[in-house]
């Protein structure tokens, strides 16, 4: 049972290495995080380090766009691509269940995203720690990296759902772009609009609940929670004051990984190849 999953995962992971996905994502994340860590204060006219929470906050606000985009790009053609080339049909005649194939792919591509996030963002954490020996760095960056990995995995699972719903690769690419736009950009704008336009205003509770519908926003909440109000503005500032703990937020994030995977599996089971 497990052997088949590992065989598929191994192949997908090596594909990620071969296509230079792992190295590219790692480099992008590393450059981004080291740049922001050391030159984060450049905007205010000085070169040097800013506070740890500000660094993580600016990293998070960039990562929230990048990570979903990268995860969707990496995985959108995972099934529809194999369907077009005929290998999906062939694989299904093997002693390999649809669930095993799905989990194998998720394990392989998920490892690429997770490893790239760990190495890329971990690099600047290690650099910072070596220079300052501040143990806060480990916990703050640890939380940041963990939530970033979950964000990546969530969008990998969402990409699988897309890949299994459509029957053409180009459609999958279009869908992936729309999903990214909705979750990373449009959702927040809509929330803001709602906040401004509704007369009575929606309650803080209601706003936070709405934000749980978007894994990107949960990621933001996790990483901005430690900040002073002065650093954040907009809808987030209100939501941050909500009562959800980090543990609860992480759990909801995990639900956002598992739920799309379960949905993808159900769609796969019903799919005519």
């Amino acid at each position, binding site marked *: 049972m497990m052997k*088949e999953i590992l065989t598929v995962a191994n192949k997908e992971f090596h594909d990620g290495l071969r*296509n230079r996905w792992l190295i590219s994502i790692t480099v992008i994340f590393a450059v981004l995080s080291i740049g922001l860590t050391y030159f984060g204060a450049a905007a205010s006219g000085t070169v040097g380090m800013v506070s740890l929470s500000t660094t993580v906050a600016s990293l998070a606000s960039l990562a929230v766009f990048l990570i979903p985009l990268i995860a969707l790009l990496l995985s959108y053609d995972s099934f529809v691509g194999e369907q077009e080339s*005929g*290998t999906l049909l*062939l694989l*299904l*005649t093997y*002693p390999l269940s649809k669930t095993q194939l799905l989990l194998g792919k998720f394990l392989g591509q998920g490892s690429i995203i997770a490893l790239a996030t760990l190495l890329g963002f971990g690099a600047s954490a290690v650099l910072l720690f070596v220079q300052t020996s501040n143990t806060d760095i480990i916990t703050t960056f640890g939380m940041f990296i963990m939530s970033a990995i979950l964000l990546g995995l969530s969008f990998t699972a969402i990409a699988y759902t897309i890949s299994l719903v459509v029957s053409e690769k180009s459609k999958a690419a279009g869908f992936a772009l729309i999903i990214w736009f909705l979750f990373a950009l449009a959702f927040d704008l809509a929330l803001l609009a709602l906040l401004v336009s509704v007369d009575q205003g929606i309650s803080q509770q209601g706003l936070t609940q709405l934000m749980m519908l978007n894994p990107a926003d949960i990621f933001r909440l996790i990483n901005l929670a430690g900040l002073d109000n002065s650093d954040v503005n907009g809808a987030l500032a209100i939501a941050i004051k909500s009562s959800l703990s980090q543990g609860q937020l992480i759990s909801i994030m995990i639900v956002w990984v598992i739920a799309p995977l379960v949905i993808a599996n159900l769609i796969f089971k019903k799919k*005519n*190849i």
Partner: protein
Amino acid sequence: MTSSTLVSLQNVSKQYKKLNVLNSVDMHLNEGEVLGLFGHNGAGKTTMMKLILGVISPNIGRVSVMGVAPDSKEAWYMRAKMGYLPENVSFYEQLTGLEVLTYFAKLKGFNKEHAIKLLEQVGVDHAMKRQVKTYSKGMRQRLGLAQAFIGQPKLLLLDEPTVGLDPIATADFYKTVDQLKTQGTSVILCSHVLPGVEQHIDRALILSAGNVLAMGTLAELRQQANLPVVINHTGLNGCVRDDSKLSPFMTQHPSILHVPEHEKLETLRHLLAYEYLDDLHVESANLEQVYQHYLANHSADKATLKANGKGTK
């Protein structure tokens, strides 16, 4: 049905949405038997293979492979004993031939050495360290065949196996099929390329628009179709016309006779009695003609059916 029946389809129908792809199909395949599956594009050949592979389930009827329904959970163990070559499969382009085959071998519980042996068998071992995207069409097809041969399957389903193969590779392929057959492997061979197939199949099944038009050995089909033997003679000139035994078989072309199968030998003897006969060429109806005959018959039936239908309205 004997105990050595490996595959059987009983009254199987399959629909996609409203479209009937297979109409109450009955067929069976014995151990060590090679069945040729013939039909136009869209006749239902691939659907039939998918049903046998258990990738899809029939709407009506029963499919049984090695005693179990291939789409059931119990069929799991026997999937490793089936080999399938899909039509138009393009393998992972960026992987090498060896990597592709090792991946598929591992999924069936075999190792890299097994993959290398198969690549040697189909003759792509010289290119196994190269990426598949550099392969020619023939090499890709051989790689696909190697994939189908993983684990010495008991049942092979090959969809257009010789497309893209040169004549030598085609001969090699049929040699392998004959070899597997002697080892007890059953083969279902789907093909458009009719010449060359007939020596290698035990029985043929002709499908059209989801219906089985004919199934049997080539000799049986020939007999059913009642196609004449074509005798091409030279040197007799006009005397055939005057010979009361030969003249009924004459065609528009004076040197070609169409003789029913059962009168073949008698006619030949009669022809040989002419001392100024220069040459004789005897040809029984080949698979292609048998195939054409059944298809033409079928469409003629349909035409009359349609005409009758209109008449009663």
